[in-house]
């Protein structure tokens, strides 16, 4: 296939994607050209972008990726892709791809041999550790790290150096999901799988614009509705989106009041006795924790919850504050709509899936809202059976696989918490280091890590596969902090970004199919891909960069992997951490052969529904469920109250600001903005306003609008009724555009339990720019 033919295929793929979004359930036969292309080698890989984990087949010709099609053998997407997936290989070939290392000399980044750059990184690490101690250095990675990348980062920093200064940007996107799972079930990650979609009767989307963020799963859901008349999709959100337009019912609530709505639904379930009494008696215990827990706005903020057991009567009494009529006043959701939602959850004949992602995760009470949605499923017993599933979707391709399972967070190890002696002993044994190397206390979560750089407590940071100079909230403080004297910043990436702009050393990374790796998606599915094409210039995988630096620091024995087999060696070493029926991982050879395998993988069998003895090898037989993660062998229902966010609209800043993504772009756009068709489809960020607000300010489409918060100001073109529509008094801005940095305005408040910032709520004022 020549290049022109490849472009024809891509244009066709874009049309298929657009048609699929416009016409739910539409299907097309594979283009006649797809399988008749001669001279291509097709190899499997998970998509580079979101956490759905679509299986792709990549067409390779002459050491170049020239075509993409959905993998029909993938259980995730069954041959379908979204617009980003179809164009994914073009992200490899942007004109300004980083091909050599860069070192800052006399204030300017200049090209340097990669070995010189790696020498400098290792020497700076050693120098800072010698002068300021092991906790003066840190690594900040990503849910886009491959599993071997994250494993080597954790082994080097936690095992060899001995600091827990290891974080991933999943702290900004999935940390509340983790603490939600841990506080309710004692174990992380969903109990269900995507097959729940084909088994559900009702889908409730909690602040989740799936049509743009998870379009392939959204298509699967709409296909289910078409195949099974009566299936309902309810969009419960703060803004009208493409998802709302396709839903059967759109319910808008005021920001933060999802907490009260969830409690009101639970109140109604109890009031109507729509409870699964047997399930509750056997599998649930009731708890409460601290209240008025703060927002983490001050440096070195600390919080520890104090759970206490309560009984059902105390829980029921606490919910008396959440009668639908009262919650209507707070949330703007009519009481009848709350009762409607409770009726859907409470109908014993309906199987219900709740989906959510950043709307519930990026929330100053992110852990609490997860608890409250689990409560609803636990009260009704609608959990861990096909079609009954509270389902936390993931944003990044390996937020689950790398950050959560490998444990690249300050508090985690590949198995368990750093505070747990048994987990430290296991890590020390597998890594071959003295147990005393592994520090027993968490250090810096992400926001605090960047605050420590600003303060000067942290001197060195190595940033891989992420772009915090676009994504950190309250950005100016953290950008200024990294630019201060005596901070040393290393950035590994594939393109220049605002983060490489402030680096002292830039390491060029091999991207995606230019190296071998594994990702783990939202449904516990691990997917392997092989190296398919050579990386450009001296670009090197992040895994091998870490190995090279570790060897230069004198840790060669711990990183004695061979270049040709290192991914296999690392995987087989890593999976020892998860031996046992609750988390057994597939072998390297099995992963190579199959388009993804869900864990626990025991005796050649994937686990589709955890805690369900019919499916889960770790669950004791003899009952419908076994929640084995908590010491009491039960799932925990938590009473968690509504508490307001730290900043709300007022006289000076009368609008809510909400931020997020768009379907065309992945995160900060550093890859997708280099794909011409995606860039042209969505070339710049914008501010969405309600038409009545626009009229009030005499703002028309395309007019320049100034948004100002207490932290910064930004100019954006207006977009009115073109993509989404916020309610009056609210605005929405996507964050993909590095020339329009909306995080100059956002607030670095976070959930005190998960430490995940809230990018969905702060106060701004709106002015027409003249």
């Amino acid at each position, binding site marked *: 296939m*020549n*290049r*022109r*033919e490849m*472009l*024809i295929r*891509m*244009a*066709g793929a*874009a*049309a*298929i994607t*657009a*048609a699929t979004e*416009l*016409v739910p*359930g*539409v*299907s*097309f*036969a594979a*283009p006649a050209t797809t399988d008749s292309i001669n001279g291509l080698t097709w190899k499997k890989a998970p998509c580079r972008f979101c956490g759905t984990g679509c299986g792709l087949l990549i067409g390779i010709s002459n050491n170049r990726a020239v075509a993409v099609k959905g993998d029909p053998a993938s259980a995730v997407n069954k041959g379908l892709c979204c617009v980003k997936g179809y164009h994914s290989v*073009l992200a490899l*070939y942007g*004109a300004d791809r980083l091909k050599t290392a860069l070192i800052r000399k006399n204030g300017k980044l200049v090209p340097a041999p990669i070995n010189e750059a790696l020498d400098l990184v290792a020497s700076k690490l050693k120098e800072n550790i010698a002068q300021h101690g092991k906790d003066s250095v840190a690594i900040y990675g990503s849910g886009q790290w491959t599993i071997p990348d994250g494993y080597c980062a954790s082994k080097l920093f936690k095992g060899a150096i001995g600091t827990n200064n290891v974080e991933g940007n999943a702290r900004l996107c999935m940390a509340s999901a983790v603490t939600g799972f841990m506080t309710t079930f004692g174990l992380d990650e969903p109990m269900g799988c995507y097959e729940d979609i084909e088994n559900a009767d009702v889908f409730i989307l909690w602040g989740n614009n799936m049509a743009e963020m998870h379009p392939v799963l959204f298509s699967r859901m709409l296909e289910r509705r078409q195949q099974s008349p009566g299936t309902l999709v309810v969009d419960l959100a703060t803004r009208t989106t493409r998802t709302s337009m396709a839903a059967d019912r759109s319910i808008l609530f005021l920001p933060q009041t999802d907490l009260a709505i969830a409690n009101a639904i639970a109140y109604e379930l109890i009031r109507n006795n729509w409870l699964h009494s047997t399930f509750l008696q056997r599998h649930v215990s009731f708890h409460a924790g601290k209240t008025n827990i703060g927002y983490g706005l001050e440096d070195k903020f600390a919080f520890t919850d104090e759970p206490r057991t309560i009984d059902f009567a105390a829980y029921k009494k606490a919910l008396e504050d959440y009668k639908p009529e009262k919650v209507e006043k707070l949330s703007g959701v009519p009481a009848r709509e709350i009762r409607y939602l409770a009726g859907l959850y409470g109908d014993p004949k309906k199987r219900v899936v709740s989906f959510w992602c950043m709307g519930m995760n990026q929330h100053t009470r992110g852990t609490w809202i997860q608890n409250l949605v689990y409560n609803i499923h636990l009260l009704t017993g609608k959990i861990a059976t096909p079609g009954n599933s509270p389902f936390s979707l993931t944003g990044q391709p390996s937020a689950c696989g790398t950050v959560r399972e490998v444990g690249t967070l300050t508090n985690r190890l590949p198995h368990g918490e750093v505070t747990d002696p048994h987990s430290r002993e296991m890590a020390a044994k597998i890594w071959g280091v003295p147990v005393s190397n592994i520090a027993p206390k968490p250090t810096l979560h992400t926001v605090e890590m960047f605050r420590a750089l600003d303060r000067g407590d942290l001197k060195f940071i190595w940033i891989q596969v992420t772009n915090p100079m676009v994504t950190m909230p309250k950005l100016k403080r953290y950008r200024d902090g990294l630019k201060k004297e005596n901070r040393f910043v290393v950035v590994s990436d594939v393109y220049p970004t605002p983060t490489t702009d402030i680096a002292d050393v830039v390491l060029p990374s091999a991207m995606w199919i230019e190296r071998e790796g594994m990702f783990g998606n939202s449904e516990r599915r691990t997917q392997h891909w092989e190296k398919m094409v050579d990386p450009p210039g001296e670009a090197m995988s992040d895994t091998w960069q870490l190995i090279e630096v570790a060897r230069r620091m004198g840790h060669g024995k711990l990183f004695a992997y061979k270049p040709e087999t290192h991914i296999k060696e690392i995987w087989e070493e890593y999976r020892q951490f998860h031996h046992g029926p609750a988390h057994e991982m597939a072998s390297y050879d099995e992963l190579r052969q199959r388009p993804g395998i869900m864990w626990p993988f025991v005796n050649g069998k994937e686990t589709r529904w955890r805690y369900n003895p019919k499916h889960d090898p770790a669950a004791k037989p003899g009952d419908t469920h076994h929640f084995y993660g908590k010491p009491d062998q039960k799932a925990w229902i938590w009473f968690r109250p509504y508490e307001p966010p730290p900043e709300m609209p007022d006289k000076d800043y009368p609008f809510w600001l909400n931020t997020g993504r768009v379907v065309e772009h992945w995160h900060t756009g550093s890859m997708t903005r280099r794909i*011409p*068709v995606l860039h*042209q*489809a969505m070339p710049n960020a914008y501010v969405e306003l309600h038409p009545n607000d626009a009229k009030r300010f005499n703002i028309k489409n395309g007019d320049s609008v100034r948004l100002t918060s207490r932290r910064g100001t930004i100019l954006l073109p207006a977009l009115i009724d073109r993509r989404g529509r916020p309610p009056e008094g609210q605005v929405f801005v996507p964050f993909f555009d590095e020339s329009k940095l909306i995080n100059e305005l956002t607030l670095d408040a976070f959930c005190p339990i998960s430490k995940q910032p809230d990018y969905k709520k702060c106060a701004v004022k709106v002015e027409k720019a003249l």
Partner: protein
Amino acid sequence: MQTGPVPIKSYIAWPLPGKAAELQSQLLQIPGCQVLPAENRELLLLITDTPTEPAEKLLAAQLEALPHIQCLSLVAGITEEEAA
């Protein structure tokens, strides 16, 4: 295949009710047109590849003259230069 500066374009073509088959047949007779019909809806995807601007203009005129099109929505336009 000869390369050219004109973008390859893709469209969603909505036929008049009951006219999908006729529209597909007519589109396939126009040089530079490929058609992908939906399997379960009255809907066509059209991909156009023309070598020169005059050929592109001619194609546009031919498309406008088709009697069975209800609506033609442009989805993508990609040039070799942009994709390089």
